[in-house]
């Protein structure tokens, strides 16, 4: 079945940099007149052809370049990419906020966009009035809103304040109400951008759940743009990775997310790392500070329970009798996985350089890329901590196998980041 509902064909979009006109009306008219007669604008500095290769001197920049893909009925497609990769431009074109420079998009069904929630909210109007206004802006008919009003109010959790002007709402209430309206839109195709960055944890869960319902239960087609890789993984079956306005890869979500993560911040660093000020957390006393780190394994690949040993060089600016090194490990989605708060301290004297070997004994991590942030301080979890210096997730490593002989072939992201150990004993 090829139930294609969105067909994007060779979409390009370029933006003009700098001034958007020639500065004077006279020159604009001259250029316009030339165009009418089919000649080239005498005042144009760059012709279209020259700018095709996006070189630095050009006055045009391609936000999207020759992008094509299809989306099928009921599919939840993630669109991921670094800032400036063209995601938002693509969504803007899809939701008809702006039009492409060339190419063509064919769509079956009504598109509802959630580019940013709360669009058109009027501060003087009450929550209820704003539901109607916002709903209408998003393309809902009045009777549709009437039918869903209770559901929307309930979902937003602001029923107490529904007849208060929204200018007196807290920002969280405002956003929740806005999302509630948007979430109850009934378009065949839903375009969502970054909405999950709002609200508290509970509301985020609710929002994610709603999106899942929309895509799974109701068979709606959803285009989802987010930096939250965990959410993309949870919601999307397929994903498209954009980079510099072009599609780098499109395929199953897990592969696409990995491809994106590898291509950006998760590039493996070398095993040796010199700490400079730009990597340090600001505001620590630096009684003792980091000089460098060295992971003993050159390829930075570990097995599940292999001890991870780091050689750490420290420099002391003051005496410290009881120094501890603590470490937090983060997964590729930037969620903390676990921390070590060590009990075995060491002594360091003023102006002394010390080399210590720090080992995380049995990390028990599952397959994936990880980063670690590390800090040095005094005290422990029983006495309280004072941090002297901290360096945050710039160093990466990878877990790729169970032990020296068995490699991970299956590890779904939804299983988490810890590989728990078990025993199974037959009793009878």
């Amino acid at each position, binding site marked *: 079945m090829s139930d294609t509902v969105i067909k994007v064909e060779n979409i390009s979009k370029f933006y003009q940099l700098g001034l958007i006109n020639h500065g004077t009306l006279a020159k604009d008219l001259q250029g316009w007149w030339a165009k009418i007669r089919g000649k080239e604008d005498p005042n144009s500095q760059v012709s279209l052809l020259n700018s095709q290769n996006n070189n630095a001197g050009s006055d045009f920049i391609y936000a999207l370049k020759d992008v094509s893909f299809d989306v099928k009925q009921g599919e939840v497609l993630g669109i991921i990419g670094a800032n400036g990769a063209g995601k938002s431009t693509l969504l803007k074109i899809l939701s*008809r906020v702006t039009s492409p420079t060339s190419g063509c998009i064919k769509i079956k069904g009504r598109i509802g966009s959630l580019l940013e929630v709360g669009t058109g909210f009027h501060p003087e109007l009450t929550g209820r009035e704003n539901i109607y206004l916002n709903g209408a*802006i998003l393309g809902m008919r009045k009777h549709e809103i009437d039918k869903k009003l209770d559901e929307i109010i309930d979902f937003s959790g602001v029923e107490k304040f529904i007849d208060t002007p929204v200018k007196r709402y807290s920002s969280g209430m405002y956003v929740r109400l806005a999302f509630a309206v948007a979430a109850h839109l009934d378009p065949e195709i839903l375009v969502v951008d970054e909405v999950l960055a709002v609200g508290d944890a509970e509301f985020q869960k609710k929002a994610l759940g709603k999106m899942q319902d929309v895509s799974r239960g109701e068979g709606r087609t959803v285009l989802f743009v987010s930096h939250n890789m965990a959410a993309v993984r949870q919601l999307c079956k397929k994903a498209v990775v954009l980079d510099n306005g072009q599609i780098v890869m499109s395929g199953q979500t897990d592969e696409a997310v990995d491809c994106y993560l590898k291509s950006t911040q998760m590039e493996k660093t070398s095993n040796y790392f010199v700490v400079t000020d730009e990597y340090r957390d600001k505001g620590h006393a630096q009684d003792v500070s980091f000089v460098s780190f060295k992971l003993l394994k050159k390829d930075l690949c570990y097995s599940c329970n292999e001890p991870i040993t780091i050689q750490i060089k420290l420099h002391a600016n003051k005496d410290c009798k009881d120094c501890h090194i603590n470490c937090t490990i983060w997964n590729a989605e930037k969620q903390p996985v676990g921390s070590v708060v060590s009990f075995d301290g060491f002594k360091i004297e003023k102006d002394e350089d010390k080399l210590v070997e720090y080992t995380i004994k049995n990390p028990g991590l599952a397959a994936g890329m990880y980063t670690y942030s590390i800090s040095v301080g005094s005290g422990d979890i029983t006495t309280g901590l004072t941090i002297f210096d901290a360096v945050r997730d710039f160093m990466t490593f990878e877990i790729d196998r169970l032990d020296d002989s068995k490699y991970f072939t299956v590890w779904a992201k939804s299983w988490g980041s810890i590989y728990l150990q078990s025993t199974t004993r037959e009793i009878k």
Partner: protein
Amino acid sequence: MSEKENWTTIITPKNKFFRLNLKELWQYRDLISSFVKRDFTATYKQTILGPLWFFIQPIFTTIMFLIVFGNIAKIPTDGIPQVLFYMNGIILWNYFSKCLLSTSNTFVGNAGIFKKVYFSRLTIPVSNVISALVQFAIQFSLFIIIFISYKIYDADLRLSLAIFAVPLFVLQMAVLGLGIGLIITSLTTKYRDLTYLVGFAVQLWMYATPIVYPLSMVPDKWRSLYMMNPVVPILESFKHAFFSTGMPSVTEYGISVTTTIFLLFAGIFVFNFVEKNFVDTV
């Protein structure tokens, strides 16, 4: 599968040369009514007098004109009671200028929403014109009340048959304001100067119309030029409806109607042209 391609929306780089998408506008009728409602509830929230402001504005302007032009400058009003003469002009002119000014702010004033969501862009100017119409209706009823009270004391006031055409005069004012506003708003996406210029220009324009002085004061040799101003025949006819003063000739009115229609189409044309990509330049 060789399914018959029945796409509901096709997004291409350029709009058709002339595309007045009334069907789409109709789909957004609920939005238009929401905007109109918003304009009313939001404008007078947290004011003590609330909707009374609709009355205060024309009353004060009339009093001002009465003092400055009627009593200090002693400009005649062709035998029409001064209060009625000024008010008649002011309310219709107010309607026109409100249509023009709010429409000319469509793109710049709503860039925030336009950048986020697509809806028929024409909903904004259309809802503005309707909001202004409601305001006009309120002020018009005030005028009628004053007119009737004058009529009781002064039998000399004679309505003319043109009274039945009043809705048409109002409609033409709306169309004219809309047309000019659409042209200006399309240009403001590129030349922001117009935003400042337009408020000023509308103010000056009022003095080129017979609101504070009667048409009879315009010298005969200038009259044909003066009547080229499309607003003048409408205002004169509106006055004629209530006071049976002189009517503009058919030619004069014909020019005004032609100009109005031309400006409306020109407005829709440039609006269409700008609509699709203005987000990138505004």
